[in-house]
């Protein structure tokens, strides 16, 4: 028998209080002389016997009540094998443990665990999520219990592998044992190698079921400007049943509610229509217990209209961006002969269409332009590529010699997952396009389209891209194809979206140059970690931070993984006998009061 709060055992001395009160009461009881108690006893032996027994029983009940009350408060733990071990305790404090009262249970189980070992066992206690590496030191039982109490639930996810790497075991005095206390989600066990010869136990906390919002994103920003725009809400149902529910979108005074049904074990995408002026808000899935997964904060910082400067001769590019006056496109286009004559700071994207070379001043201007946020430059190589231009492009690609194929070249490989080519996925539209003139490009970063002659056609970098040809009839017949306009639109947007449309998760570090103010006024500087979901704002911009969607999958590790990893489930109740006897003692104490009352009535 062990006690989590042995100090309360001193209270057992108070069991004498009812006896003292009883004796005091007896002393105070009126003494009445009687001729012969012998006669009373003889004539009433049975009844008096019962009365005396009743009195003793009532007294015993009262003493037991006090005793059991303090016994209960001392948190008795039955059984235990009293092993001496060096125990590495990992408490799952990832946000999936926020399901119901899972985390509280985990802490309670961990505290019980500490008393399952011998008093001189040593412990190392750490949380699974977002624990920074620090000094490794073994704790005694009391210190370990204190540490366990101080571990808090986070919105982070976590990897056992990472924790064990950050906190390597040092100098265990006894045989080493690892104990993981948590719901045992698969993702937490990724890449973990077997920990043999050390024993690895899992105190299993029941795994709940969950459904939640995975992502909220604009369905397609490259579309004519309008009063509203569609937003895709991706939801995942990890429940084993069809789940009816509803999505709510809240943004200031705007409120939207939409019913939907989530299919079993798969992702469901729902489209909600938001007014054009609603760029940030909160999408909520109603009716689930893992709160962090029900909320998704969105802040679409992408511009609604891109301001584009085309430098070079007016041609098909300008027409692609503004096909007609009637059709509104998400572009505001200006053309210029040279960069020098334009104030390029007022543009989002600059297209250099067949510009033969850059002056030193133009190079500097472009450099300055690219240091700004959400800015991009797209080069279309014409008949000549000068030295400065080549040098500028070396950041993403090496420009070789011009190529004039016999006949034409077609596209060999296209990254259809790239935003620019996504609509053409599964079609042969792009395969039919002919290219008559192009430059021999060799990518440094990433080529998203290559020609069958083995040359890169389209090379992209962070905020730069270069096309090894111009979109003019003498270079390619793309300009006559239906794919031309959407391809150009998406290509331009694809250069801006990765920067402006970046999604932040709890655990990411801020890459914002300015200090952000987060939920509850918490301020986050550059390179600081987002600790909780919500909106983080600075003067001109708001970013949304959400929890990692994968934590919402409350799927525990399977039998196979457990076998491979040598993980054994540890049932504290079974292993340590009856476990926590507090409640049992409390119930018995209540029973004593009940019995006492019954005896008083008899």
């Amino acid at each position: 028998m062990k006690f989590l709060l042995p100090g309360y055992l001193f209270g057992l001395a108070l069991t004498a209080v009812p006896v003292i009160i009883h004796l005091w009461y007896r002393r105070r009881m009126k003494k009445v002389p009687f001729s012969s108690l012998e006669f009373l006893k003889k004539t009433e032996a049975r009844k008096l016997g019962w009365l005396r027994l009743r009195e003793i029983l009532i007294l015993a009940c009262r003493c037991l009540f006090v005793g059991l009350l303090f016994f209960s408060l001392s948190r008795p733990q039955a059984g235990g094998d009293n092993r001496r071990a060096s125990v590495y305790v990992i408490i799952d404090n990832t946000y999936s443990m926020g399901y119901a009262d899972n985390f509280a249970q985990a802490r309670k189980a961990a505290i019980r665990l500490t008393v399952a070992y011998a008093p001189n066992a040593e412990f190392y206690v750490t949380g699974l999520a977002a624990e920074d590496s620090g000094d490794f030191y073994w704790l005694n039982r009391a210190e370990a219990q204190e540490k366990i109490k101080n571990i808090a639930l986070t919105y982070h996810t976590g990897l056992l592998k990472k924790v064990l790497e950050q906190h390597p075991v040092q100098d265990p005095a006894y045989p080493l044992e690892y104990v993981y206390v948590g719901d045992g989600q698969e993702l937490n066990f990724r890449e973990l190698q077997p920990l043999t010869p050390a024993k690895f136990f899992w105190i299993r906390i029941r795994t709940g079921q969950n459904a939640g919002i995975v992502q909220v994103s604009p369905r397609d920003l490259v579309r004519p400007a309008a009063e509203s725009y569609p937003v895709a809400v991706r939801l995942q149902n990890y429940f084993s049943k069809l789940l009816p529910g509803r999505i709510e979108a809240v943004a200031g005074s705007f409120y939207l509610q939409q019913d939907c049904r989530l299919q079993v074990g798969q992702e469901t995408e729902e489209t909600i229509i938001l007014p054009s002026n609603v760029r940030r808000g909160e999408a909520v899935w109603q009716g689930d217990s893992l709160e962090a997964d029900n909320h998704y904060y969105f802040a679409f910082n992408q511009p609604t209209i891109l301001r584009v400067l085309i430098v070079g001769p007016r041609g098909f590019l300008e027409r692609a961006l503004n096909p007609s006056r009637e059709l509104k496109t998400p572009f505001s286009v200006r053309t210029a002969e040279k960069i020098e004559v334009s104030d390029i700071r007022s543009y989002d994207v600059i297209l250099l269409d067949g510009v033969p070379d850059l002056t030193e001043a133009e190079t500097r201007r472009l450099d300055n332009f690219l240091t700004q946020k959400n800015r991009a430059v797209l080069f279309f190589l014409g008949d000549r590529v000068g030295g400065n231009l080549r040098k500028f492009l070396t950041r993403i690609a090496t420009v070789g010699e011009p190529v004039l194929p016999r006949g034409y070249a077609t596209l060999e490989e296209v990254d259809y997952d790239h935003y620019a080519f996504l609509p053409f996925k599964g079609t042969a539209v792009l395969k039919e396009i002919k290219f008559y003139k192009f430059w021999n490009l060799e990518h440094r970063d990433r080529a998203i389209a290559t020609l069958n002659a083995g040359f890169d056609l389209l090379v992209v970098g962070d905020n730069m891209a270069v096309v090894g040809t111009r979109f003019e009839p003498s270079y390619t017949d793309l300009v006559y194809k239906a794919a031309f306009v959407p391809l150009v639109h998406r290509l331009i947007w694809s250069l801006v979206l990765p920067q402006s449309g970046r999604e932040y998760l709890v655990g990411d570090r801020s890459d914002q140059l300015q200090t952000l103010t987060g939920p509850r006024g918490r301020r986050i500087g550059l390179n600081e970690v987002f600790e909780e979901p919500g909106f983080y704002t600075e003067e001109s911009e708001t970013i949304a931070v959400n929890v990692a969607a994968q934590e919402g999958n409350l799927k525990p590790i399977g039998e196979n993984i457990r076998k491979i990893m040598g993980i054994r489930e540890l049932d504290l109740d079974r292993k340590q006998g009856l476990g926590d006897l507090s409640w049992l003692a409390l119930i018995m104490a209540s029973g004593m009061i009940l019995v006492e009352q019954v005896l008083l009535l008899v």
Partner: protein
Amino acid sequence: MPDPKKYLDPRVLARLSHLDLKARLVVEGFLSGLHQSPYKGFSQEFADYRPYMPGDEIRRVDWKVYGRTDRFYIKEYLEETNLRGYILLDKSGSMGYGEKMTKLEYAKYLAASLAYLLYRQKDGVGIATFDTRIRDFIPPSAKKLGFMRILETVDKAQPSGETSLADVLSDIAQKIKRRGLVILISDLFDDPDRVLKAIRSFKYRKHEILVYQVLDVRERQFPFTETALFYDLETREEMAVQPDFIRSSFQKNMAEFLDNYRRRLQEARITYETLYTDTPYDKALFACLQKRSRLL
């Protein structure tokens, strides 16, 4: 004119201090209530002269003395009788029970009254006081000195010790050789079988037995209400008792206890009277006279 019968009431008597006076008042009060008392004894054995008092019979005047002295004297005789009265007074601790008047006090008045009654009748009267054993024993005597010793013995009797009634009665039965009137005054709080056996042993020795069981009313009714620590007057043992819980069965058992004595003593033709401490003494005295007449 004062009503002598009032002295039959124990509560009135309790106000008086002298035991002999109490006894005299009781007996005279009792006798004056009787019409034509048949119990005026005569004897041929001379005892004493006394001056003539108005109301004395003329025939009892000693004319020879008158001739010599010219004064009227009445000649008194010792009554000739075989009666010897033995009063057995239980002074055990339990007899000390009582609120205004303890059982022992009542028993003492009763014993003194009976002794005086017998003394008045010129019967020899003796007394034995006892608890676990015989404490005092005064052999029967018809003389005034003997009577005074009885009163003295009764007066000094204080409740003490435990009851061992059966054993003591057996001892007394051994001591009393001549046939007589044995008056037992006790609460009889002992094993009834053994007590009855001892009482019957007197009967076997041709004694007339008179049993007065003295009780307090509260011993019969158990009227207590609040839970209290009852302690034994004999053993000083304590016991917490809730009277409400046991009253009815206590009364029932007490009734059985008394009924047992009554029934079995009647079967043995032994006079038995239950006297509560507020019972007038005439009942006791009358029973005594009846027994005495049987012996004469």
